[in-house]
């Protein structure tokens, strides 16, 4: 007969949600290079994922809607019969599925994404025109929120349960429930509208009649959308940083640092923060990928001429070629940034390298 004590002693699979114990002791030599196999492995899976997204995209936009020539040129917008015939040929109408897909991939590699009828230009150039304003807006918001979020998270995690922590965490959770575009609308009502304070421009990228130098004018237009975007990111970063600081708070190496006689502040800055930063680094790279897509609603609200506003414009119609192109760009951005995160992470966290 087995006693109950024996059965509980059976080793259990490591819970994937729990962090693995440190294995740095085993791997003392601090190699800063990655094995080639790891790099190839990660790159390969990113390429497979990219292929998956293109296949998904193909079925989503070219197969599901039925006659692609109709969805790509709906409601007589393309009434030139010759152009229609040429497009049907390009899309491989009447051919078997695999040939259609082959044609689609061929066109994709040439960068030929059909023409956007709402923008009256090729999809590729429409996206190219709009990508930089988005990177500028979301990039600024991301940098600000990383700085503020990490500071808030560190402070509230280090003294968790304090009044500062309760206020910061409570409001972070509330901000988490706020649609950022609605907050943007509120900001406009308070700071930009005529009935409000009217100190910031309501919308747009720049004002041709402005007396300010161009970059200051753009910065002035950026203030409100950046605040609206940052708030949600700040909540995210501070919550993650808070919980990883709490994880490190009672680690033994901190007791050592205190025993050495370091002041509390130094223990936090020199020992706890660098180790607690790791999850935030992952989040940072993941959100880099979302930088291009995160601003869809904010750009709509503030009429900011980026990819987000472009997607909102593509919706009225709907402009399928443009939607298809934007979807591909957004997904590709996330995949590439994920790959970079995968490649950088082991360099900064030896535990991943050893695993």
């Amino acid at each position, binding site marked *: 007969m087995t006693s109950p004590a024996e059965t509980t002693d059976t080793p259990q699979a490591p819970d994937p949600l729990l962090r693995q114990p440190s294995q740095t002791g085993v791997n003392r030599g601090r190699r800063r290079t990655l094995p080639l196999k790891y790099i190839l492995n990660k790159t390969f899976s990113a390429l497979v994922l990219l292929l998956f997204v293109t296949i998904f995209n193909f079925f989503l936009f070219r197969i599901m809607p039925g006659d692609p020539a109709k969805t790509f040129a709906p409601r007589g917008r393309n009434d030139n019969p010759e152009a229609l015939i040429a497009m049907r040929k390009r899309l491989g109408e009447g051919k078997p599925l695999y040939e259609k897909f082959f044609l689609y991939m061929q066109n994709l590699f040439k960068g030929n994404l059909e023409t956007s009828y709402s923008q009256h230009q090729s999809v590729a150039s429409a996206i190219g025109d709009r990508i930089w304003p988005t990177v500028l807006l979301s990039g600024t918001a991301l940098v600000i929120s990383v700085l503020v979020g990490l500071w808030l998270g560190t402070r509230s995690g280090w003294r968790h349960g304090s009044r500062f922590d309760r206020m910061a965490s409570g409001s972070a959770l509330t901000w988490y429930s706020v649609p950022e*575009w*609605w907050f943007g609308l509120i900001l406009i*009502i308070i700071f930009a509208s005529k009935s409000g304070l009217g100190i910031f421009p309501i919308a747009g990228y720049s004002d041709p009649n402005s007396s300010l130098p161009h970059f200051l004018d753009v910065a002035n237009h950026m203030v409100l959308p950046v605040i609206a975007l940052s708030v949600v990111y700040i909540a995210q970063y501070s919550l993650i940083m808070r919980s990883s600081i709490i994880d490190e708070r009672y680690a033994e190496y901190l007791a050592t640092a205190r025993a050495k006689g370091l002041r509390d502040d130094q223990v936090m800055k020199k020992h706890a923060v660098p180790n607690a930063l790791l999850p935030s680094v992952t989040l940072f790279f993941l959100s880099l990928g979302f930088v291009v897509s995160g601003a*869809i609603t904010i750009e709509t609200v503030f009429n900011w001429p980026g990819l987000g506003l472009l*997607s909102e414009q593509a*919706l009225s119609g709907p402009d399928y070629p443009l*939607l298809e192109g934007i979807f591909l760009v957004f997904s590709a951005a996330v995949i590439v940034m994920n790959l970079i995160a995968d490649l950088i992470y082991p360099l900064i966290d030896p535990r991943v390298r050893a695993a």
Partner: protein
Amino acid sequence: MTSVSPLSPTVEEVGSVVWARRRRAVGDFWRLYRHDREGMLGLIVMGLIILVAIFAPVLADANGLSVIHATGKPIEPPSATYWLGTDFYGRPILTLIIWGSRISLIVGLAATVISMILGTFLGIFAGHFPGWKGGAFNKLTDWFLVIPFLPLAIALASIFGTKVPRLLAVIIVIGITSWPGTARLVRAQTLTVEARPYLERAKALGGGHWHQVTRHVLPNVMPLVLANTTLTVSVAILAETTLAFLGLGDPLHASWGTILHQAYAQDAISNGAWWWVVFPGLGVVLVVRAFNMVGRALERVLDPRLRERS
């Protein structure tokens, strides 16, 4: 005739033991939950909002939704008659919000059900079957986690929107874009259950996959799924509001997001009609926060690892 030895318990006896154990578990759970102040507050707010949605016909006259029968003047500020003001057609905002809560909640709940079923099924499959079968499902989850949510939802909604009723399209879109997170969680939990001795015992006694999954894996995974469900409802309601704001909602069944879309489209801001924007948004924040609070409290109660936290 079945011969049952007097020592081995009958099916009914086993059943009653199981039920007694479950009742006790629910009792224990409630005792812990009741002491979670955040969770109780969330539960009360959530209950109130659900009551408002159910009793919408009693609380506000449905005629107030009609553009033709609108009683107020266009964009009237809040007053004694119209507590939250009126919209462009003179409809009371309060009526719109009360009736809109139905749509927002229905879409949020229905989308969550789809997401939960997909996520639980795929997560258990990925965790229960070792080797390439489970691995393939795990990869699929990874892939869907990477695809940015809003662009995918927009692409799907623009395609589904032409084929099925708008509201159903939004439900389907949110349901099939929000399952990967659940699948992840369920898979992790399934893996820990799989390593337990009682599952080995079930296998050794010849229990098939169906028996293992329904009798052992599912009951152990469900509590976490429950906590996750509440959190997913809040995410789904936010997603519905955002999609509706972008004009993908159903104009005939106005949700809170649709009200905000109309306010934006009718230039409520330059007309100074702040009440048209502020109140529906506050409704969203309140309901999302309430579901969030309940979900977090459930997690705290169900997951002992989190209990000592904060």
